[in-house]
């Protein structure tokens, strides 16, 4: 099975990278972009049956820094 972990900065945490991307988009002439927040996507290739709790533990222990980041797990079951 596979899982995707989306890591995003918590609301309110300043995102200098997102701001720079925002400015660059404006510089390219894209109007109407109100805000940009950048995050990370981590794809995990896991043994079948790996539990949600295990993936969550991976996020808490390493993948995300929960002081400043939130994470969301998306499981992709083998078809």
């Amino acid at each position, binding site marked *: 099975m596979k899982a995707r972990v989306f890591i995003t900065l918590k609301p309110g945490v300043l995102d*200098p*990278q997102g701001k720079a991307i925002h400015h660059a988009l404006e510089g390219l002439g894209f109007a109407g972009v109100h805000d940009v927040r950048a995050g990370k996507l981590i794809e995990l290739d896991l043994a079948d049956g790996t539990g949600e709790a295990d993936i969550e533990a991976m996020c808490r222990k390493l993948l995300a820094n929960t002081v*400043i980041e939130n994470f969301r797990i998306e499981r992709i079951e083998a078809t």
Partner: protein
Amino acid sequence: MKSAVIVFPGSNCDRDIAVALAAVTGRAPVMVWHRDSELPDGTDFIALPGGFSYGDYLRSGAMAARAPIMRAVTAAANRGVPVIGVCNGFQVLTEAGLLPGALMRNAGIAFVCRPVALSVENSQSLFTAGYQAGETITLPVAHHDGNYQADAATLDRLEGEGRVALRYAEPVNGSARSIAGILNDAGNVLGLMPHPERAFEPAHGGTDGRRLFEGLLEAVA
């Protein structure tokens, strides 16, 4: 003083801090590799050096904080052994949970590499005994992720408990409340972004960093 310098793949200030410690203590520190699981017996001071451990993969300091040696460092810190983390070492200490908060990308995006003015906020700690409270000193910084952030309650607690050791006296990286260095609650762990080991000899352009090591030696010995 029997000091140890932890070396991670990508550390690049390990030799600088080793030279400073050897000069001040008269004894060369033991260089401890990140994959070791134990510190030398009798280690009474630990330095986590600056650099780009593990290429700053995932987050600065994130991989190093989970290296095998960090269990021993955490245990020693909890026993009261003084631990200093400079720059990447500070990032490792926050990632390891030995200090609160996090070091994020500089607010201005750019890598900042220059001497900066700092205000010594607390001269009562093990690490800052060589300075006067309120004194302005100059130390070099060289970092991309030095923007210290924590929630308001944590920042209030750090300030209320005198745990802000150093503050930037000029805009540098967007750090909350201009924090440049903080202490843990027991006062035996210091993390700071500026490099005291790079302002150690007159040839460095300043010697304000030397007093940190001299004050520390006096406080520990």
